[in-house]
């Protein structure tokens, strides 16, 4: 065991994540869903597309917490954790973006008008632009981080930038799309978290485990990358 945090070696949460994902994949396709026009069976994308964004939010939150911890304690471990949780968050964001574009192509796009025309209206959707901005801000985080050679300066500057990026995330994907008109569902209230009148009970039984399962998978990927980085640093210093 190297000096990586203990929880990275525990297997119970990894197994939990796998079991929840198996449950998501089977119950997600077989479970009963409300019959809605236009959406039809694509409503099941809630367990996959939406979970990517929930996972991204959770991973970015972990990342910013680690950034703040780094600034308080100046411990390299927090810096590495912050970097790699953000990296996995970006991966989830990209997957959420691309799955969303497939979903939109078959539900938002009007089959009666040429694709380019309906694409130009979809591409202007505030939620999509907001998501694109927030992802670009996080891309800039990676670019900024890797462009600084000095290890301590890199850690400090990227931790501060991480906090700014997290702050930009909120207006870009939560506030702006609600102020402007958007095709994207979930513009008022607490989308997918409103127990009374949002998603149906049968879907909630799959959706919440799905979010946890996908997030645990993301955490697993992040911990592996953090451990590689820690090992790499140890090799270089000894």
């Amino acid at each position, binding site marked *: *065991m*190297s000096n990586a945090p203990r929880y990275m*070696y525990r297997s119970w949460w990894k197994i939990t994540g796998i079991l929840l994902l198996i449950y998501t994949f089977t119950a997600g*396709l077989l479970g009963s869903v409300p019959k809605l026009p236009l959406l039809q069976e694509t409503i099941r994308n809630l367990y996959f597309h939406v979970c990517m964004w929930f996972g991204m939010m959770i991973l970015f939150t972990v990342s910013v917490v680690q950034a703040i911890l780094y600034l308080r304690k100046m411990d390299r471990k927090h810096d590495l954790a912050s970097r790699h949780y953000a990296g996995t968050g970006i991966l989830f964001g990209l997957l959420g973006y691309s799955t969303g574009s497939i979903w939109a192509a078959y539900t938002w796009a009007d089959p009666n008008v040429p694709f380019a025309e309906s694409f130009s209206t979809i591409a202007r959707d505030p939620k999509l632009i907001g998501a694109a901005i927030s992802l670009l801000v996080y891309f800039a985080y990676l670019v900024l981080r890797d462009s600084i050679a000095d290890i301590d300066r890199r850690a400090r500057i990227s931790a501060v930038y991480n906090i700014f990026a997290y702050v930009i995330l909120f207006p870009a994907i939560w506030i702006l799309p609600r102020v402007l008109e958007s095709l994207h569902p979930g513009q008022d209230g607490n989308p997918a978290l409103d127990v009374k009148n949002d998603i149906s009970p049968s879907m909630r039984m799959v959706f919440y485990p799905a979010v946890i399962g996908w997030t645990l998978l993301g955490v697993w990927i992040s911990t592996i990358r953090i451990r590689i980085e820690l090992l790499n640093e140890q090799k270089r210093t000894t």
Partner: protein
Amino acid sequence: MKWFFCLIAFFCFFPASAAVTMAEQMRSDGRIYVVIAVMLTILFGIVLYLYRMDRKLSRLEKLDQKN
């Protein structure tokens, strides 16, 4: 490695032999079970990949500690 190719061959020729018997589980409900099988296969592939990476990393870390 041999058993792996046997497994692939089994899955490749599986539909041909299954065509004789009708109304199988995999062919009912609009063949949604086929989609589940495909998705679970991908999931298991990714999990296996992560698991092996995890194991390899643990071994490297142990080796590192000994030196």
